[in-house]
């Protein structure tokens, strides 16, 4: 860990101002990912802005009938919230499928969105990694890739985004609210929040430098049967090989987002039109243009079969 300076702020405005003053600073909330990365010197911020005391820890109804989730709402609290469990069940399930009880107690809504990849080559600082060290190359391509991405990949990076929560939020059409260092705020649809790796895999999201997430809003409930189905090698405490967040309506229509296969929660709206025709048809559209490796080619049939499991349950 490199030496760093540290400050606590007490309001979003103060956080934004602090970020404006200290380029290269990082916000810290739960720290469940950032601190690990700092110990390994994968992240080495010169300055940390602790945002734990700025409020933003409430879940409120919006005027549109949806929910506004404060950036600092802990994963445990969000998963247990009555409205979330009633109206956005897949979100609650996704949260509970992630990490462990202890980590969920610390981890925040905003921090969860900002998790970095768990690609093992990203974590091994002896290895080239375009995400960790832009332009150094990608050791994962041609290496051990069982966990890595099959769609939306580039020649620079095949990392996945590890979040479960974000996959459910993608299916729910959530919006990320932010405040910039200059004090202005904006709303980013979750579809545009995370990026594909392209030639700049070191940039995970479309947040600008110093921009702070203040909330995630969910539109008004869409009903239907909601699922979050996470597939992994052990029963708990592992990142997804593949996960499916889905809403299936009584008429067979619905929405599907997939985790564990791309640099961002993966959703192809046009594929959802195929839902009445079954999992194979949906998966074919979802995964069109996929570029799997020898190690992770199984994710292609696994997406189809996991979606098949969800649809079978929805029909039951």
């Amino acid at each position, binding site marked *: 860990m490199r030496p760093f300076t540290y400050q606590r702020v007490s309001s979003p405005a103060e956080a934004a101002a602090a970020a404006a003053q200290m380029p290269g600073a990082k916000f810290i909330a739960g720290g469940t990912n950032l601190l690990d990365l700092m110990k390994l010197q994968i992240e080495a911020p010169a300055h940390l802005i602790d945002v734990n005391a700025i409020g933003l820890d409430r879940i409120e109804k919006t005027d549109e009938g949806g929910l506004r989730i404060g950036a600092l709402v802990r994963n445990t609290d969000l998963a247990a919230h009555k409205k979330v469990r009633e109206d956005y069940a897949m979100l609650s399930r996704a949260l509970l499928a992630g990490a462990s009880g202890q980590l969920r107690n610390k981890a925040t809504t905003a921090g969860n969105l900002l998790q970095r990849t768990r690609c093992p080559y990203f*974590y091994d600082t002896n290895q080239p990694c375009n995400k960790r060290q832009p332009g150094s190359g990608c050791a994962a391509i041609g*290496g051990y890739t069982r966990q890595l991405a099959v769609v939306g990949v580039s020649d620079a990076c095949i990392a996945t985004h590890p979040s479960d929560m974000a996959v459910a939020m993608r299916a729910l059409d959530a919006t990320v609210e932010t405040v910039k260092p200059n004090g202005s705020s904006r709303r980013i649809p979750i579809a545009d929040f995370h990026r594909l790796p392209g030639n700049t895999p070191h940039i995970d999201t479309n947040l600008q430098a110093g921009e702070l997430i203040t909330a995630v809003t969910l539109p008004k409930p869409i009903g239907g049967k909601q699922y979050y189905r996470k597939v992994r*090698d052990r029963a*708990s*405490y592992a990142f997804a090989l593949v996960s499916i967040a889905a809403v299936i309506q009584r008429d067979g229509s619905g929405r599907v987002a997939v985790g564990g296969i791309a640099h961002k929660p993966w959703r192809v709206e046009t594929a959802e039109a195929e839902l009445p025709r079954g999992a194979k048809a949906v998966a074919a559209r979802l995964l069109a243009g996929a570029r799997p490796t020898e190690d992770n080619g*199984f994710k292609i049939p696994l997406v*189809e079969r996991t979606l098949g*499991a969800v649809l079978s349950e929805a029909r039951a």
Partner: protein
Amino acid sequence: MKFDTPAGANPIDRMKVVGKPTDRIDGKLKTTGTAPYAYERHDVVPNQAYGYVLGSAIAKGRINRFDLAEAKAAPGVLAIVTTLDMPRLKRGQQNIAYLFGGAAIQHYHQAIAIVVAETFEQARAATALIRVDYARERGRFDLATEAKTAPLFGGSSGEGSSAPPIERVGNFEGAFEAAPVKVDSVYTTPDETHAMMEPHATIAAWEGEKLTLWTSNQMIAWSKGDVAINLGISPKNVRLDSPFIGGGFGGKLFVRSDAVLAAIGAKAAKRPVKLALSRPIIANNTTHRPATIQRIRIGANRDGKITAIAHESTSGNLPDGKPETAVSQTKLLYAGENRLIAMRLAEMDLPEGNAMRAPGEAPGMMALEVAMDEAAEQLGIDPVEFRIRNDTQFDPEDPKRRFSQRQLVECLRQGATRFGWSRRNPKPAQIRDGRWLVGMGVAAGFRNNLLMKSAARVRLDGRGIVTVETDMTDIGTGTYTILAQTAAEMMGLPIERVVVKLGDSDFPVSAGSGGQWGANNSTAGVYAACVKLREQVAQRLGLTGDVDFTDGQVRAGGRSVALADAARGGELVAEDTIEYGDLDKTQQQSTFAAHFVEAAVDAFTGEIRVRRMLAVCAAGRILNPKAARSQVIGAMTMGVGAALMEELAVDKRFGFFVNHDLATYEVPVHADIPYQEVIFLDEVDPMSSPMKAKGVGELGLCGVGGAIANAVHNATGIRVRNYPITLDKLLDRLPEIA
């Protein structure tokens, strides 16, 4: 005490303390966080500085030069020692990878420098500032490639399993060719890491020429000797102290770079140094269980009698390394007149392969017991019955040698009854529970019993307290407790009157903890010392003839005296060693089990979840059923890991284990282990020691993987021969989805 004739009746047979499911006497220390583990021993020596190890970024080649300018200038740095500062250290007797010194790189994350600083964070940060100029060389990293030219190679695990390069009985090829039913399958097991909770950790302090290492080590005497060799100093000047060990599984049988570099760092910094290997370098810096490629052929008559059996295994290791002895159990487990055993060893440039819990048998049984299931399936014979038909009460290679005890058939029969085996549908893929395909599998469990000499000292003081001292270690197994039970039984005391001190190299040399030999041998050493102490007590009290030690009293010839009275005039001290004759040569000593597993496979996704497990064990006298059960359920859990998830993934280009942390190297979590049951059959083995005990810690693992693989086959009809059995290996053969 020489043990060279079968044990007769002795005080242990009273089983007043021994054989009881006593809680661990060190349990409170463990559960309250007050058991002193190596890295936490802040009190043993003042002024401790922190060391941090830098691991090599290449797998093979040389180091041209270091640039230490930035690191040396970093805050808090006290000393930096690099591998170029000294010639290559001599290897100890137990290992083949060089631990430090010289320019040559043998494997990834080989230790190449230590930084000593005032704080842990400073040491770690400064280590990251070291710049290294490497000359990378091509290496041999792919076992499948190297196996093609690997020569025949015999060897021993050093832990009870061994085999010559090739060994034949009868005419295997002829008999196999003629057999009406044949299995000929190839199985692979991956490299595995021990993944113990406590990392390798040491505090080192020099006092003149004398070095003390507070460390985490299973084998104190081995390691004292090897440290002396590594550092080129006299063993007289080395002391190791390792009273508590947070798991080892064979990974701490040896001196690793933490101990050697803490000593080197302490000398350079002129201060005591504490050092733990960081989790991400453990898998590549230390030892691991090597991968195997195993071919098994079984020929049988229609009546289910095996006529021909062959087991060949290939593994890889660094130059001078030994093979993974995966064929060893196949010499002894089943009958059959025509036999072939062979091992091959490929020279490779991955980290050192060495012992991990049940080296040899653990991966060997994962293959053999699936081959047996395949043979039973072809024969149309129940797999429990097939094993029973091929039981042997003598060494198939040498029919004059009988097994001292062999209750494999009883384990299988009782297990089948208890598990509800009759409900298993012999036809695979027939049982459906919602989305789950459900099946049952069985495997035999087998592990040899090893006799190793073991010494102990016992003291009796004027308060009637008996203190046991031995360099034996408790690696989480319950050794403190069974040694206390042994001394209490021998001296006629309640267990509360016994104090046990372990892990100090100044104590008498024990068998140590490895190869499931610890319990029987170390208690037998305490038994021997107690026999001497009893003689001293009797002499001091003037008692002769048949002297009885019960309830704190010593009785003979109508007199009864308090045990404590014997030490009123001064402490009594007795020391002895249990030493063995050839009882393990004249008869074969092994432990047996039957493992039963019910597994469910998601028909959509191929996720495998174990539902129930049962182990029935026959392993001599069980010294403490509670501790033994904990050993076995821990081993069964490790078996689930080996069967379903554990695999060090090799980067075959750069030559290293990629998933080198506990996030990416998955071991079972609680949710993977729903229900486990363990049954111990009544058994005493008078050939093993005066304790008549054997070991269970590895028996509980050997066979589990095979039982799981067989259950998955019964559930799905899919035979996976490449471990771990992950869902991607099932997907293309699962039922079509609607």
